[in-house]
């Protein structure tokens, strides 16, 4: 079993008034894309900052690359994208990237070459000589992302990297992240957008109010949900299906998205019976599929509908 890149061992962190992280343990394996999920305020950023040695845990310890050196000492091997984006507004884009690379120890010439390459790859080639403040928020985020990977770190830690991006840019950065990981690097990123995690992660840890709720390979987690979930889509009149969906003989929990829905069958219920009832309702089925639960559904089931509602604001899933 290869040495985990990050090991969090029974870590607790308290701030005045509340406990942000409670007895948390997790491991990030090398070469893996690991998602740290949870609603806003769950303790994801706090955990990440403790990994980066920006704050210190009150109890427990964190070990990186199997050693005792802190996140700040290993800066050359780690790329960190904090939740609060920060760039020098008045600097030119290319100069800024070169600066970020140099500050990680990359020699000047290599820094210049790599920066130019990444700018082209992310469609920012024309903006190299503009000031950061002239760029849109999405472009700035792309620049900041680039700054994080320029020094080719073994471990990438991203705190809410895709929030606030439009669908196109979000996809671009997600693809870049996956490509980066496939080169053999380890990626840990936090998010509250379940769809992203579902698409990208090999391994997932869900925390809520400082406590770990779910932890394991994504595939296993979904399989554990059993084959009791059904994904539905209506094309004629979704409202007609409502009485069926509210019937507790068929449905244990329901996620109603209006024209589509995902539900968990009630214990003992036969999916065929549900199918018959829905067809009879006249709502017009365009999809009826027995599926593994989505991460969103698992999350809701484990964490509760309230937390899920909080997670749904303010960003829509990309």
């Amino acid at each position, binding site marked *: 079993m290869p040495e985990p890149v990050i090991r969090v061992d029974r870590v607790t962190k308290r701030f005045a008034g509340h406990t942000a992280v409670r007895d948390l343990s997790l491991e990030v394996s090398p070469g893996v894309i690991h998602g740290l999920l949870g609603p806003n305020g769950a303790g994801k950023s706090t955990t990440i900052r403790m990994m*980066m040695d*920006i*704050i210190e845990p009150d109890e427990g310890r964190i070990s990186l690359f199997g050693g005792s050196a802190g*996140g*700040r000492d290993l*800066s050359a091997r*780690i790329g*960190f*994208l*904090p939740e*609060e*984006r*920060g*760039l*020098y*507004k*008045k*600097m030119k884009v290319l*100069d800024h990237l070169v*600066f*970020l690379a*140099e*500050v*990680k*120890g990359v*020699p000047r010439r290599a820094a210049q070459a790599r920066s130019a390459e990444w700018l082209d790859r992310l469609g920012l080639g024309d903006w190299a000589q503009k000031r950061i403040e002239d760029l849109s928020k999405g472009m700035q985020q792309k620049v*900041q992302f680039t*700054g*994080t990977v320029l020094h080719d770190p073994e471990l990438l830690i991203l705190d809410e990297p895709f929030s606030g991006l439009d669908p196109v840019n979000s996809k671009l950065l997600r693809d870049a992240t996956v490509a980066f990981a496939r080169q053999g690097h380890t990626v840990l990123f936090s998010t509250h957008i379940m769809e992203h995690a579902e698409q990208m992660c090999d391994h997932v840890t869900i925390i809520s109010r400082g406590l770990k709720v779910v932890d394991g390979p994504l595939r296993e987690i979904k399989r554990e949900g059993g084959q009791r979930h059904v994904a539905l889509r209506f094309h004629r009149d979704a409202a007609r299906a409502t009485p069926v969906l509210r019937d507790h003989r068929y449905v244990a929990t329901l996620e109603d998205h209006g024209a589509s829905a995902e539900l968990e069958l009630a214990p003992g219920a036969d999916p065929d019976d549900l199918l018959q009832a829905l067809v009879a309702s006249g709502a017009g089925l365009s999809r009826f599929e027995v599926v593994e639960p989505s991460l969103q559904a698992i999350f809701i089931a484990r964490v509760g509908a309230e937390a899920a509602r909080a997670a749904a604001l303010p960003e829509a899933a990309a």
Partner: protein
Amino acid sequence: MRKVWAVVRREFLERVRTKAFLIGTFLGPVFIAGIMVLPALLMRQSSTKRIVVLDAAEGGFGDRIAETLRSATFGDDSTGEPRFQVTHLRAEGRLDAKRDSLIAMTDRRDLGEARIDGLLIVTEDALARDSLEYLGGNAGSVAEMGSLQRILRQVALTEKLARSGIDPLLLAQTMRPLTVVTAKVNRGELTGQSGESTFLLAYAMAFVLYIALILYGMQVMTSTVEEKTSRINEVLVSSLRPYELMLGKVIGVGSVGLLQMAIWGGTAWLLASNRTRIAAMMGADATQAATLPIPDISGGVILVLLIFFVLGFFFYSAAYAAVGSTCNTVQETQQAQIPITLLVVLGLISIFRLLDDPNSSFARIMSLVPPVAPFVTPVRNSLSPLPLTELLLSIAVMVLGVMAMAWIAGRIYRTGILMYGKRASLREVFRWIRAG
């Protein structure tokens, strides 16, 4: 070290490439030049004045006045333009009438060439009463009336002497004032420096130091706070050690300061050494410009000033950086920086005590106190060159002071830059220093 250099380069280029820097650096010398040349420019007499000498005196006094006025020139040398165009009129018993009619023609631009600029009335008893009357459009000009008075006094003196039978030439020789040439003696050794210029130099040096420390020290402070507010600190902290960041910032800003000072200083020196030529080009009174006591500055004095500028800058900008790291907005820093700035002011004020006696025990002690030493030692050195041992001792103390300040400031800085929220209290700050 490469990382520190990356920060230095960034801080330096970001400041030097701005319009503000270019304007400040090049406008500065223009400003200095203006101060030097403008007064002379403003006060010069621009054109030849038409004077009428209304003569009611006897014995040729009036004639001699007219003659002297005719030969007066700008710049007081024979190649200059004549100051006056003189018309000599005898009163012939009708002083008042002629006076009135002449007044009517005075300061009348509409008369063109026939106008009179001024009227000098020489009464019978002028010499006895030591009084002449001048009526003219330019009576309000301090410079012109001053010149006129100077010239006329000379004529009066010569006249009185002649009438008493004393040979004016003999008297001129006798009346030549005695000059006392001053030279500083330092501890039994002749130094070869004159009196007043050294005062100016000492004061100028202290003032420049004062301005530079505050101006650039504050830039380090605001830069630190701005990095906090723009949140770029979290990225920086994951890449650099805080002391690398602080050091790079101090060196970067300091270099900008040195560059700007060098440009200003160089321009000032250029202007000063060519001041008479420049004044002449502008048509101003060259003699006046020449009398400005610009001191000769020796290389040794400059070197000591530079050393203490660098040491003082490290000392104070580390303090300013620490202050900046405890604040969250630029406004908060305005209050927080007061103690540091007061220390700098203290340094400036302390030099006044030195001017009377640069080698008193007070002065000696002050050279060994790091916050004020950057002012005290260079100023003492310019007034009375210090022996090498004293200089080295002061430098050593300063270096120790810088190291201590850097250590304390570093501790505050590394915690402060990641602390958001309420501005840290003094007690908290002490905890940061101890915890490390």
